[in-house]
C-alpha cells in the first residue's frame, strides 16, 4: 500500500464515520434547542464573555446545525479532493463541536476524530514528509490507544479477576443480553474473557511492529470493536478506529521495508 492510497482510504473511512455522526446529531437536534438539555446558554458561561460571543455565532441554535453540516461537507471534501483548506475547515468545525460538548460527546471517539483531523491537516501541508508524518501519527496514536488501555486495565485487580468486565457489561448503556447473563455469572469465563481482552490490547503494538501480525491483529481489532458496539453501544468507536487501520497497514509495511 502506498502512502497516497493509505491516506485516501483514511479520509474515506473518516468521511463515512462523520456521515454516521452527522445523522446522530440530526436525530438529537431537539436536545440542542434553547431550554433543552444541551442548551448552549449554560455551556457558554464557561468562557470569557468576548470569546463566548464569538462562539455564539457557531454554537448557538440553530447555527450549530449548520456547523455540523459544514463538518460533513468538509469530511466528504477531504475524501474526494484532499487539500489544506478543506482539512482546516474539518479540524476547526470538529474543535468547535468539541467545545459545544465540553470536551467530548462520546469520549475517546471524539479524541480519535481529532487525531485524524489533525493528521489530515498535516498530510495536506506542502512538504515531502507530510503524508508519512501524518500516517505515522495516526498509527502511533491508534496503537497507543489499545496499549495504554491494556496497561491501565492490567494494573486493576478487578480486571485481572474478571469482575470488572462483568460489571461494565451489566452497568453498560444497554441492558446485558439475556443470552449472556449465565456467562456473566461464571467467574472462570469472565477471567478468561478479561485475559483475552487484555492480551489483545497489550499485544496490539505487534500490529505495527511485526508485519505478519498486522492482518490478524486488525481483524481482531474489528471483532473487538464489534463486540463493544453490541455489548456497550460504542458505535462511534467502531467506525473511527477502523479509519485508523489504513495508516497502521502502511506504517507496518514501511517498517518491514526499513
Amino acid at each position, binding site marked *: 500500500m502506498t502512502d497516497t492510497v493509505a491516506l485516501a482510504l483514511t479520509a474515506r473511512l473518516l468521511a463515512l464515520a462523520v456521515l454516521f455522526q452527522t445523522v446522530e446529531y440530526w436525530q438529537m437536534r431537539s436536545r440542542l434547542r434553547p431550554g433543552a438539555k444541551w442548551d448552549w446558554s449554560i455551556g457558554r458561561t464557561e468562557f470569557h464573555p468576548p470569546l463566548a460571543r464569538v462562539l455564539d455565532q457557531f454554537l448557538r441554535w440553530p447555527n450549530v446545525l449548520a456547523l455540523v453540516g459544514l463538518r460533513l461537507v468538509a469530511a466528504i471534501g477531504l475524501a474526494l479532493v484532499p487539500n489544506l483548506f478543506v482539512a482546516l475547515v474539518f479540524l476547526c468545525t470538529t474543535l468547535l463541536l468539541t467545545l459545544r460538548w465540553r470536551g467530548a460527546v462520546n469520549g475517546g471517539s471524539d479524541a480519535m476524530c481529532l*487525531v485524524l483531523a489533525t493528521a489530515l491537516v498535516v498530510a495536506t501541508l506542502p512538504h515531502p514528509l507530510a503524508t508519512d508524518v501524518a500516517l505515522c501519527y495516526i498509527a502511533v496514536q491508534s496503537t497507543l490507544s489499545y496499549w495504554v488501555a491494556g496497561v491501565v486495565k492490567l494494573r486493576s485487580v478487578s480486571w485481572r479477576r474478571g469482575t470488572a468486565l462483568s460489571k461494565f457489561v451489566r452497568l453498560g448503556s444497554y441492558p446485558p443480553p439475556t443470552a449472556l447473563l449465565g456467562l456473566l455469572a461464571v467467574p472462570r469465563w469472565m477471567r478468561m474473557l478479561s485475559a483475552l481482552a487484555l492480551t489483545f490490547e497489550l499485544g496490539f503494538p505487534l500490529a505495527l511492529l511485526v508485519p505478519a501480525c498486522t492482518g490478524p491483529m486488525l481483524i481482531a481489532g474489528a471483532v473487538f470493536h464489534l463486540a463493544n458496539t453490541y455489548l456497550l453501544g460504542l458505535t462511534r468507536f467502531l467506525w473511527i478506529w477502523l479509519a485508523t487501520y489504513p495508516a497502521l497497514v502502511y506504517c507496518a509495511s514501511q517498517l518491514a521495508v526499513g
Partner: protein
Amino acid sequence: MVATVTVPGQHVSELSIAYLGWLLVGLAVVAWLCTRRSRELSGGLAHLLKALVPSWKFFDEAGPVPRLFVRTGTSRNTLGPWRPHAPRPCRAWWHLFVNAPVLEHLADETTVMRLVDDATTTFAENPHALERSVSYRLVDRLARIAAVHDGDDGREPIAVYQFKIALCDEIGPVEDAVQSPIYTIEHAHCAEAYR
C-alpha cells in the same frame, strides 16, 4: 543546522532542528497543561486541551458508577420515590451504524460524572459555589426535563422535583455523592423546549 530524520520508507535530511525543537516544546506545553489539576486549569478551553491530548484510559476504574436519580411531587411534602432519570436504550440492528440513543445516554452519563468530579475536586471546599457551576446546572437541566416527563402520564401536574447522584454497583445505589435541594418547576418555561 540540519538534522537527519528517518521516517518509514524515506531517508530525509531536510527538517531543521529548530522546527523539531519548537514542535517538542509545543507538545511539552500542551502535555503539561493537560496534567494540571482541573482547579488550576478551568474554563471551557481546558476541555479542548484534554481532548487534544487523549489519555486512552478506557474502562480502567471498575468502582461504583455515578447515576442520576430524580423524584417528583405535587408539593414539597408529597415527593415520590427516587427513579433513574432515564431508562437504558434498547438494542437495534441499525445501532451498528447510527446510535443516537446510546450516544445521548453516554453524554448524559459524562455530564453526571463531571459534576461528581467537580464536587469532589474543584468545589470540595466550597460546596455552595457548586450550585452555580456549569456541571451542576447541566445536571439540574437533565433532572428538570426528567421531572417534566414524569408529569406526562396525566396525573396531577408535577410542581417540585429533587435530584441526587448516587454511586451504584451491580446491585443498586451504594452511597449518595450529590443531592440537590427541592426545586419548583416553572411550567411557563418548560413547555415544548423540554420535550
